[in-house]
């Protein structure tokens, strides 16, 4: 029977980036995903390539990760980002007050800022609110959430990684305290089989708690959904952030011919049952129109929920206080060998998360191979389908 060095559970951005990293290091990698790749949280975020500005005041660790990854991804994924920068806009005196902390925080984290007057900002983004007082330009960019992640998958596939989609994990196989593989069902045919691997990596995002339950280990994951609203028409070309601490409806992200407003935050138990509260949709309109008044009149396109995989004790309740950084758990301290969980984080830092996890995986397998994902230019997303 064919055996792999590493088997990844979960075909989101994290799993894809990890497959890419490990494949470049010469490992035999396979990935199982119960649906199509990027069908969980990955495809559903608003498409922001973070500059780190959003976290520069309260979560400096995340902010530094973001700006580093932002610069790396622009190099290794040319042609994937709408590189129009972003603005943090102050529309109240309180916002102006916050802007001092903001610029200070950005400077500390190495995020370049450029302060603009009201007139300068309105000249580059004419749809901004007339109440605008000042704006700060930061190196945000936008992406197509699915297509950015698909470049990891495309390149990994080219380098020999095998992707098994529509393949759901039924159980994790163990011998003594060691994980040896997974039992899966292929939904295309209904056939069950066992896939063996030296190490199994749980990259199931908000579902990683469910996977951990199969092994009998604890992953402190909190599926924390947010509502997003897509409107027809590109109301801005830059990413427009509100100059406030992180809150509901604090961002408008232009995407193709759409404008996406995000997001809210709460916590659920089942990542397959998020719901879509109508009052959250209204909140997106209400907060969005404070920054761009045309939001209220723009035709509705879609509203949806997506669950962030936040790390935190099972007990915190709004999701906002949870850190946006990522964490790699080696469950060996819980008496389980051959099983690693990577969770938390965000699309912008997927490559960095993968690097950290691949380091752990290689160390456990005794493989001495350096990470190459900072330099290797990735294939276009379409190569996932044609390659």
């Amino acid at each position, binding site marked *: 029977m064919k055996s792999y060095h590493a088997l990844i559970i979960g075909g989101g951005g994290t799993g894809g980036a990890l497959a890419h990293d490990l494949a470049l290091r010469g490992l035999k990698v396979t990935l199982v995903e119960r649906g199509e790749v990027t*069908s969980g949280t990955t495809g559903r975020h608003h498409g922001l390539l973070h500059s780190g500005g959003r976290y520069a005041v309260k979560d400096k660790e995340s902010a530094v990760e973001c700006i580093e990854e932002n610069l790396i991804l622009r190099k290794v994924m040319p042609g994937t980002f709408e590189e129009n*920068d972003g603005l943090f806009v102050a529309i109240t005196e309180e916002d102006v007050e916050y802007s001092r902390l903001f610029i200070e925080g950005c400077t500390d984290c190495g995020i370049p800022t450029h302060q603009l007057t009201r007139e300068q900002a309105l000249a580059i983004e004419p749809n901004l609110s007339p109440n605008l007082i000042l704006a700060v330009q930061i190196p945000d960019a936008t992406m197509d959430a699915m297509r950015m992640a698909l470049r990891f998958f495309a390149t990994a596939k080219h380098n020999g990684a095998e992707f098994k989609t529509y393949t759901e994990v039924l159980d994790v196989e163990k011998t003594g305290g060691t994980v040896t593989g997974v039992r899966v069902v292929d939904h*295309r045919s209904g056939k069950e089989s066992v896939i063996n691997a030296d190490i199994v990596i749980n990259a199931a995002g908000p579902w990683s708690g469910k996977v951990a339950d199969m092994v009998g280990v604890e992953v402190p994951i909190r599926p924390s959904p947010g509502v997003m609203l897509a409107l027809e028409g590109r109301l801005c070309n830059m990413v427009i952030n509100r100059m406030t601490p992180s809150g509901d409806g604090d961002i408008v992200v232009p995407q193709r011919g759409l404008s996406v407003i995000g997001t809210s935050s709460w916590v659920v138990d089942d990542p397959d049952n998020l719901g879509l509260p109508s009052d959250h949709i209204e909140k997106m309109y209400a907060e969005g129109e404070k920054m761009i008044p045309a939001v209220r009149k723009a035709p509705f396109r879609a509203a949806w929920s997506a669950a962030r995989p936040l790390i935190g004790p099972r007990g915190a309740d709004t999701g906002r206080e949870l850190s946006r950084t990522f964490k790699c758990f080696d469950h060996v301290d819980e008496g389980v060998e051959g099983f690693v969980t990577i969770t938390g984080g965000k699309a912008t830092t997927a490559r960095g998360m993968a690097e950290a996890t691949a380091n752990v995986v290689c160390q456990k397998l005794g493989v001495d191979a350096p990470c190459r994902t900072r330099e290797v230019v990735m294939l276009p997303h379409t190569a996932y389908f044609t390659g």
Partner: protein
Amino acid sequence: MTKEITFKVFRYKQGDPAPHYDRFTVPCDENTTVLIAMQDIRRDQDPTLMLRHSCHHASCGTCGMRINGKEELSCVVKVLDLGTPTVTVEPLENLPLISDLVVDMTGFYQRYTAARMPYIRQSEFNPGAEPPEGIDRYTRYENCIECGLCLSACPVAGSDAEYLGPAAMAAAWRAVEEPRNGDGKHALNWVDNEHGCWRCHIAFECSEVCPSNVDPAAGIMNLRRKLTGSSLLRLFGIKR
């Protein structure tokens, strides 16, 4: 307000002698899209139901289906807006079926990438706006979201399995219209054959179903005009 809606869903698993339909009843409210209803079926009634989805806001193009016979992105079709007590859900046509609602997009992407269109284009929105310091010009992603609805709706694709199809030729036209890294000659040569732009029979179904303002039919016709124009010039010995 919640209403019980019956979904008649196309089912097929590899090894089945033939496809069939299953019926599921799902409570739907005013926010429930066909995509959410399919996911609810998978969660609560049949975990083996296969479908593609990703962004949930008409930007990724994976959730295309035939809903009551019409090609749509299931993420933006609200069930109660359809107004039918039974909603029929089928996979896209003119692409090989993998299972249930999932079709194989390989052929679609083989054609689409052959046009060699760059995915980032100049943004035409807010035309008066000056880009900020450090940005030469505002850019954005191309309109096409590679959903395949156009190919499914095309009557010609149904009769010529080698037809390049609307999305690929619309991409070719974009490569000619805004060349960016080339002159568009490759794209023009590529469509100039019997499975290319001359095969189109002008039914406009591609543009009718396109969820992303691509207007593939206009792209194909523009390619023809360009090719006809240069043929005429060649006829009179003028080279361009």
